[in-house]
């Protein structure tokens, strides 16, 4: 993975604790990080707290950043994903749907290929809020951020094939939820 010259300079400056570099980092990568946090942490105040923790942690461990493994944005996304999940897990118990216990079972119905349908979109919107935080994050990274499976795998700490199967399972789950609505 290649790193731009600007990013390399930015990382050097961050390692030297230059305030201007910090400001540049926040301005450039802050909104994306905040969005990642918001997908998992529902409370706005909590999201702000986690956001700050993400950058404090990132600046402390900037020396460990390896541009060969991932881009800076993906590296920050990984920290944001883990910090948010840790925060949520510490706050409340994780809801486990009955369907999650039968992962990959053939009992799940494949979603039908449907044209753009307003009613389906609305139902899907409602169904999205019923997913687990990590599922919401994965599906948003894929559809909204248009991240590659490799990058999502780096963020979530898994492998691309697992992310692919996870996406398929989450999609099926969404359509299954829609049927119950």
């Amino acid at each position, binding site marked *: 993975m290649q790193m731009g010259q600007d990013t390399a300079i930015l990382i050097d400056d961050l390692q030297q604790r230059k305030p201007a570099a910090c400001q540049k980092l926040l301005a450039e990568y802050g909104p994306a990080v905040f969005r990642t946090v918001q997908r998992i942490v529902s409370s706005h105040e909590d999201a702000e707290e986690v956001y700050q923790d993400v950058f404090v942690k990132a600046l402390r461990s900037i020396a460990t950043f390896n541009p060969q493994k991932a881009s800076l944005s993906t590296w920050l996304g990984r920290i944001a994903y883990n910090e948010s999940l840790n925060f949520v897990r510490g706050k409340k118990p994780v809801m486990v749907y009955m369907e999650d216990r039968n992962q990959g079972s053939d009992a799940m119905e494949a*979603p039908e290929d449907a044209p753009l349908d307003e009613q389906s979109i609305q139902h899907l919107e409602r169904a999205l809020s019923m997913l687990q935080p990590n599922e919401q994050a994965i599906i948003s990274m894929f559809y909204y951020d248009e991240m590659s499976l490799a990058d999502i795998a780096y963020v979530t700490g898994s492998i691309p094939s697992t992310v692919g199967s996870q996406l398929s399972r989450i999609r099926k789950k969404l359509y299954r939820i829609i049927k119950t609505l």
Partner: protein
Amino acid sequence: MNEIKNDINLRKAISRKEEKLPPMPSDLNERLMQRLQEEEKPSRRRTLPIALRWMTAAAVLVAVLALFTWKSQTSKTQPQNAETTAQLAPQEDTLKVIEKDNVVKSPTTHVMIANDTREVEQQHTRRLETPQPKKKNRKAVKAQEPILAEAEPLPEEPETEQEYLPTEPDPFLLAAAEAQDIRARGERLYQEVVQMINNH
């Protein structure tokens, strides 16, 4: 995978959901920068409580150690004290009894002493003729001197020897005087008996 990617309904639903998310506060980065700057500073405020914590911990440790040693010492001495008090308790009782007896008896002894002073004086004059008594008797004789002083003044002693002159009669001295008196009576009786035998 294409099937997943081409799910336009889901893509649209996610886009709508993402758009509904509240925007990032404009001052959030400023607050974060302030926090980062505060954490960068090696603040004295943070080091001082740490030093205080260590000091209090050390003080508590010393206090605990002192308490422990004091307790161990007291636990060792307490049985000894108990033994000594137990031993002394009967002795104290006897002392009380003795004190009571003394209170009752002391006037009578004083009366006896007052009656026998003349005899004692006589005995003393006799004794002066006899060779020097032992150290204990010498003390007794010296203590008797105030009684004799009324009869005949003693020659002035050199000032270098400052002796203690008791203002009250010494019970030991009185007992010695009584003993002398008895001895004198015995001697007199012996002489009388010897004379009677010679006469016969």
